[in-house]
């Protein structure tokens, strides 16, 4: 299966630290590449450990988040913010008890995680950093959150967009209202941004001193942004830019890259009360639209699905996206084999599957988003909606 594989393998080579453009992980900053050549087993064990760490971090984070959710619910009920007949929508501690465990297991037992671990993808490390970032954010530690966010950004640039949900969450935790006119809001934002930027600069300088050249900046971030490597993966970029007309290439690269960052601000406005859901949507968008997506990225956001199990009753068409995802996951290796090894299919077959897979993911995420918004509406307006004339009403988006 297509992976961002062999990153570690490249890191193994003694020369890669210098100029190898494919070293998306500048090997100077981490000792993993030095560890890995010894043996395959060691490498696999290491990746398994990172996966377990990710799962533990997610477990702790979600446990904490549940407590927060519960407190918030209690507060809102006490403040009478909820409509009277929404008792069945409110999450009970009984339901929430197993959610952290479910999330951790969902991550560990997800076939995508297993696959990316077997393929020795460095995506696992990336996931671990993001999981620790989430943990630090939910625990309310601004400094650690900034450190891990900087690390994640340093690794793959896209987690930059997670700055917004983290900030919103921390603001909420500090009971600072998100108002553009309030002074404390700006103060805290600047504080967090400064922390984040300092960390980023420190990490980048550190790798500069380890490598003694700035070569890694274009070779890592230029590589992510300008998409020169068109090796087939599960994303949308490779075939699009393989088939692109030369003179439009730059334009579409810009459009596609902006697309990843584009959703952050509208989402931040819409979901400013729910930063964790915002984080989930943002991680999902990154994993769909990043330039070199791998199945490991998919595994990370899918781990959050049990957290939103209370949305299930509002999902419109969960059946179709889940069937699409399952069928595509099965067809990926089949069509890959037919194209690359058997030669009886061509690239279009595999491309069609990536399209279907991505549509499936988009459907899934937008469906969850829809369900989340709908539940919020019901919570504030009551489950029994009536028209003016007293008959049962339909809810529509307008």
């Amino acid at each position, binding site marked *: 299966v297509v992976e961002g594989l062999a990153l570690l393998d490249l890191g193994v080579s003694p020369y890669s630290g210098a100029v190898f453009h494919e070293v998306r992980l500048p090997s100077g900053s981490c000792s993993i590449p030095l560890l890995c050549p010894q043996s395959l087993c060691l490498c696999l064990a290491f990746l398994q450990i990172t996966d377990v760490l990710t799962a533990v971090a997610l477990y702790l984070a979600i446990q904490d988040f549940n407590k927060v959710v519960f407190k918030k619910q209690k507060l809102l009920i006490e403040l009478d913010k909820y409509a009277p007949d929404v008792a069945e929508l409110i999450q009970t501690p009984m339901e929430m008890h197993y959610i952290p465990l479910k999330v951790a297991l969902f991550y560990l037992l997800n076939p995508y995680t297993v696959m990316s671990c077997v393929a020795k993808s460095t995506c696992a490390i990336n996931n671990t950093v993001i999981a620790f970032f989430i943990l630090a954010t939910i625990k309310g530690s601004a400094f650690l959150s900034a450190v891990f966010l900087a690390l994640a950004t340093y690794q793959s640039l896209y987690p930059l967009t997670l700055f917004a949900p983290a900030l919103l969450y921390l603001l909420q935790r500090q009971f600072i209202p998100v108002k553009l006119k309030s002074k404390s809001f700006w103060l805290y934002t600047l504080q967090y941004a400064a922390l984040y930027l300092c960390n980023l600069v420190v990490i980048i300088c550190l790798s500069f001193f380890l490598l003694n050249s700035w070569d890694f900046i274009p070779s890592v971030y230029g590589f992510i942004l300008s998409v020169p490597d*068109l090796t087939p993966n599960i994303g949308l970029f490779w075939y699009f830019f393989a088939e692109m007309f030369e003179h439009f290439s730059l334009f579409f690269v810009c459009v596609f890259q902006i697309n990843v960052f584009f959703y952050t601000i509208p989402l931040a406005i819409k979901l400013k009360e729910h930063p964790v859901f915002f984080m989930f949507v943002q991680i999902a968008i990154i994993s769909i639209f990043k330039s070199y997506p791998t199945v490991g990225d998919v595994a990370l956001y899918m781990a959050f699905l049990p957290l939103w199990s209370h949305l299930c009753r509002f999902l419109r068409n969960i059946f179709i996206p889940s069937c699409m995802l399952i069928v595509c996951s099965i067809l990926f290796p089949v069509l890959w084999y037919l194209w690359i090894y058997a030669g009886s299919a061509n*690239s279009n077959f595999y491309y069609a599957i990536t399209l279907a897979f991505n549509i499936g993911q988009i459907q899934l995420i937008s469906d969850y988003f829809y369900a989340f918004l709908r539940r919020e509406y019901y919570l504030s307006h009551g489950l029994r909606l009536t028209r003016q004339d007293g008959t049962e009403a339909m809810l529509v988006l*307008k």
Partner: protein
Amino acid sequence: MAAVAAVVLLLLLAAAGPGRARPDVLREELLLSPLPAGDVAATFQFRTRWDADLQRGAVSHYRLFPKALGRLVAALGVRELHLALTQGFWRTRTWGQPPLQAPAGAELWVWFQPTVTDVDKAWKELSNILSGIFCASLNFIDSTNTVIPTASFKPLGLGNGTDHHLLRYAVLPREVVCTENLTPWKKLLPCGSKAGLAVLLRAERLFHSSYHSQAVHIRPICRDASCLSVSWELRQTLTVVFDSFASGQGKKDWSLFRMFSRTLTDACPLASQSKVYVDISPKNKVMLTDQRRPPAPSVQPLCVALKHLTSISCMARPPTSPPGLMKGSGFLPLSKAAGMSVVVLTALSWLLGGKGQGQSEGLCPAFTVTLRVIFIIHLLSQEKELLEVTPPPVSLYEAVVQGEKRTYAVYDLLSPSLFNTSRSLNVQLKWTRPQDTSELPTPVLHAHRYVSGYGLQTGEISTLVYNTHPYRAFPVILLETVPWYLRLYVHTLTIITKGKENKPSYIHYQPAQDRRRPHLLEMLIQLPANSITKITIQFERALLKWTEYPPDPNHGFYVGSSVLSALVPSIIAMKEVDMEQSPLFTSLFPSSDGSSYFVRLYTEPLLVNLPTPDFSMPYNVICLTCTVVAVCYGSFYNLLTRTFHVEEPSRGRLAKHLANIIRKLRGVPPL
């Protein structure tokens, strides 16, 4: 009056003086050598030597040296230029070591003067100009196929600067060499193809061959032994291999006319030397020297012969090993043997030292030496009978070429006696007896390269390097240039000799950059005696943009030959030869001492398939992918900008009216 005449004479002499001070010399040579497998290799070499310093820019009058190249060298600060255009592949294993090998396609390597500031620009300009001169697609040489080797290529001429930043090397393995490249090459010759050896160069014959390689080498050389001033040398070489076995109805005999459909009538009037060499050295020489399989003389018949000669009884035992060399041939008259024995004895007594003891031990002890002598003479007599050259050569020339002793029949086209009897020279060679084809000599160093693996994702390049020297190990420099779209993984590089890992003592690796530069891997590997070294490296195939594929992309992509450079220990001690005087076969490469000779080998170019996108799909792909992005954008836009509302009853009022009208028409009560 006499005084005036003297002054005029003096003036004339003075005017002629500088002209003579920098004379151009042209030598043309043709070497015809029958190859072991039955093919014939013809190597032309035209050497123009010019005792003038091109770099100074003072040269304005060109005589024999082609002006196009001379101006190029002067303008771009070229110190050395080597260009080879080749069609086909020289099969080192069956054809032996070539005089000058070149990789399939076009090869260009240039050393620039240290005064050149922007080497890359000069290189680009040079390849474009050469592309125009030789009608070849050398303008496709850019940064994606140019490398800077650090160890493999050294300047062959004067000046031992080894700052490799002045060197550029590029190979275009896809280049097809044909008539349009030959014609401009011929035009650089002083006599064109009108006279001299060049009349043989007819395109329709040259390209109807197994191998065709034409090259241009320009280098500065010492003007004289003291080496105080510089001369420039231009070598134009052309090697062609004819499959005479196939074209001659199963016979391996050949003649100039049959190969070139022309004969030689005269020398080029501008040439100061014009010679044809025919390699008539014995083909079983390797058996003489190959110590792994010492010749096993049949003791019994020799003993019987000796009995006749010396009337001494001898109890001969039947030979333990088959009499490989004696089969099918009769005995020499022993009187002749006795006459020559003293001479040959001293020279060759080492040869069978200790080897024949097994058979003759205790049986004919007194005659062991004599036996050997007779045996050697027998071999020599066999060699002489193998082939027959007509017309009889004027002279014979013996030389040690690439570690082997060779004998050449020489025809000097400038000597008037040659064209006395007939008007043209048509060298013919006949094999008097069929050759023993089972005993093909293998060259000391040869290599074989292939790509393995299945599917279009990954693969492996394997290079097998053979050292067949019986007892000497030697190092070899391997240069591998791989285009960027095959992503090499250096950590998978393995070098295995005789089942053990062989660590290279020098390794230089420059990884590729996408669309900018190729991979360059240079290694110094020690080859143990009598061994096969296997070098493997794995790669991954990249998917390219659809505009980057050449026409017919499913044909595959060529990967240029890898270059093996080595100082191969010679089997026969070489004597120092005067480089300037000796002809063609003391090639470009200088030899430091007599014990080894320089060999540069090129392996097979590789053909690698890459995964291809569907070339008819660009519009569809752009539309479909953009649709997917738009689906995401649309659904998120929807959710982000709209809010939930309770459905209002006013909705669908128009539809209700319409429905009621229809219902009224049908006579059904309205809604």
